[in-house]
């Protein structure tokens, strides 16, 4: 379709002022925080620009818009806060239309009796949290992207927050929702505490990354502001000692809000004053009901010290808390210094997680000449296992292709090792357009289900092409 016609048709649906075509907006909304691009752009990589960025003001407008785009086979990418790190919101095809949902941003209703809040997809999490705080509640959802992310995008990427061990991830928090399917049909899933009426349809949306439609409204859990917090840090000799302590804490039934275990490389700078050389650090934070919090604190203390943890007091946890979102700011800085910096989060059961961590670190050490940094921490734990969040830094030659080669080399090591030990290749950043390469192996025989879902909900394949499932 001729670009001008497309733009004028879209303008007739949402109004002239809601369609942006200036270069700066197009370029801004053509990418997210995909680490590969953050460095490549310094060496001449140029984004593919969308035709336009549309800002619909209502679910009905999105419906009309998608109906039109679907009928005309126009590739369409929903765009939220743009904080994704795997290129999920990246424009890769000429002729793409980006739908920016940030003007669908009302906080609809707080139901204090049910402890739920209903919000539109374009509401910034930061704003929702502040709004709830004024009323004595919290979202319990604190991802590092909190300054940028919107709730619709968070649900669409199966986000998780740093306090997830108590409050859960997106899949636990969303009770009901509204979305618009690729063909423009508006569908609503009511908010109830539990249901047994066939497969859970919410879960088709949570983590769909725009491959099937656009999330326009969510009803999510809220929590009371915690009465109390209990903090404690421990030094452990090695990662596997720390992992054992966490396993026991989780399997004893405690629900600390934060459980983190950082390896020596990550610990030496922020917590060096508390540690002996080479030690890892364990951080616990419990919060909520005072009586429960006290019991949890005592229980964790007993397990941690019995497991060889040396108590370090509250201070390291305070330091972590204060700097928990700093990393996001560092990305740009390292990029300017020519360094490739990224994070890779995987998870596995307790039986496998230590092997994955150790073998991955070893392989990067021996195989990647350009590596300047490689560390890991566990930050989201469960009764049956935990995640490892690897942080990598490399100094490739200043060239678009070389950057990509080193980037994939490091990623491949993590993905291959994780798959080898039966872990999952993505714990909470989603698939985007980057992890698709390993998804077949990840899903194995169930990959076909993913293809069928895509085909069922988006028969023309217009919705965020290339996300989750590689384009054929």
């Amino acid at each position, binding site marked *: 379709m001729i670009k001008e016609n497309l733009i004028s048709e879209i303008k007739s649906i949402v109004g002239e002022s809601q369609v942006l075509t200036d270069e700066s907006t197009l370029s801004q909304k053509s990418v997210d925080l995909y680490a590969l691009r953050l460095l490549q752009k310094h060496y001449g990589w140029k984004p593919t620009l969308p035709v336009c960025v549309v800002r619909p003001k209502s679910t009905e407008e999105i419906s009309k818009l998608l109906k039109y785009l679907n009928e005309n086979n126009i590739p369409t990418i929903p765009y939220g806060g743009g904080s994704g790190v795997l290129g999920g919101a990246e424009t890769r095809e000429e002729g793409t239309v980006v739908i920016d949902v940030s003007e669908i941003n009302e906080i609809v209703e707080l139901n204090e009796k049910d402890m739920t809040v209903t919000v539109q997809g374009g509401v910034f999490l930061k704003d929702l949290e502040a709004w709830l705080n004024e009323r004595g509640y919290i979202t319990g959802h604190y991802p590092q992207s909190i300054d940028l992310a919107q709730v619709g995008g968070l649900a669409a990427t199966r986000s998780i927050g740093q306090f997830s061990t108590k409050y859960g991830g997106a899949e636990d928090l969303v009770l009901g929702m509204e979305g618009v399917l690729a063909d423009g049909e508006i569908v609503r899933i009511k908010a109830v505490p539990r249901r047994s009426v066939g497969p859970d349809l919410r879960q088709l949306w949570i983590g769909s990354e725009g491959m099937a439609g656009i999330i326009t409204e969510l009803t999510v859990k809220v929590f009371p502001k915690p009465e109390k917090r209990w903090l404690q840090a421990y030094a452990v000799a090695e990662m596997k000692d720390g992992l054992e302590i966490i396993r026991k804490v989780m399997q004893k039934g405690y629900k600390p809000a934060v459980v983190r275990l950082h390896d*020596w*490389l990550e610990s*030496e*700078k*922020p*917590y*060096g*004053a*508390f540690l002996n*050389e*080479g030690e890892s650090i364990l951080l616990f934070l419990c919060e909520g009901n005072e009586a429960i919090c006290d019991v949890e604190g005592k229980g964790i203390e007993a397990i941690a010290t019995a497991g060889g943890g040396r108590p370090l007091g509250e*201070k*390291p946890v305070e*330091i972590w808390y204060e*700097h928990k979102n700093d990393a996001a700011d560092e990305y740009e800085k390292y990029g300017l*210094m020519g*360094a490739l910096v990224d994070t890779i989060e995987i998870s596995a059961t307790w039986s496998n997680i230590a092997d994955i961590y150790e073998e991955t670190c070893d392989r*990067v*050490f021996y195989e*990647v*000449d350009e*590596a*300047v*940094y*490689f560390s890991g921490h566990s930050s989201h734990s469960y009764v049956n296992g935990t995640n490892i969040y690897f942080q990598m*830094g490399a*100094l490739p030659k200043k060239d678009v292709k070389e950057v990509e080669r080193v980037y994939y080399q490091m990623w491949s090591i993590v993905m291959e090792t994780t798959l080898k030990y039966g872990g999952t290749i993505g714990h909470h950043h989603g698939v985007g357009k980057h992890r698709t390469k390993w998804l077949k192996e990840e899903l194995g025989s169930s990959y076909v289900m993913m293809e069928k879902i895509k085909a069922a909900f988006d028969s023309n394949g217009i919705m965020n092409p290339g996300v989750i499932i590689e384009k054929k």
Partner: protein
Amino acid sequence: MEFVVCIKQVPSSDKIDINPETGSLVRESTGAKTNPYDLSAIEACLQVREKVGGKIHAISMGPKQAKTALREALALSVDEVFLISDSCFAGSDVLTTSYTLAQAIKTIAKPDIIFCGKQSTDGDTCQVSPELAEFLGIPHALYVVEINDINDEYIVVTCDMGSYRETVKMNFPCLISVEKDSFIPRFSSLRNKIEAQKKPINTIELKDLEDKDKNNYGYCGSPTKVSKIYVPEIKRETTILDGETDEVVDKLFLKLDEWEVL
């Protein structure tokens, strides 16, 4: 040739709380990093070693946690590191710090060049390096932005002296203190980082120094004393403008007119 690089571990953030009544620190900052200016000193020294060859000794005065800074130096491939640490070095001011460093350097090596960072991010004074040079009786150059020439006998460097630039030639031994932006630190490789964990860190205590009189070190030996720490008073009364952008900016420009600043 032989080189010494002086490095310091500094708090990674300088946030502190202070009790305004007693003036005492309520909560000290604990995160630590290598003084970024000193990383530039290491970089300058590495560049010189690449040109003329030689051995680099990195030294750091501080508590045992300062080992981390020395590990970082090892990861950047300095040859040998020394932690200058003794309970009686605590509370040193500029003079005793420089004196202790001078004493320590004498026990370690006969360096041709000593490299320092321009300043530390916690003290911000730029004074230790000239005082260190004085105690060692060697010439120094501060604010070095460029190393123009180096050979077996002398070094030529350019210094940024604010309103002018000065190029000086110094014979060895000498001390140079470098500007941060002129020697952008390189990254150490992951392998070097991990290998550095296994290398020894030598320790220098009072008993290893030539001058063993503890009255010349630390708090006792420091001529300056901090008599009081206080939170500066706030003197202004703030009017807050709130409202629509248009309105606020209107009011702002009116105020600026009233103050006659435009």
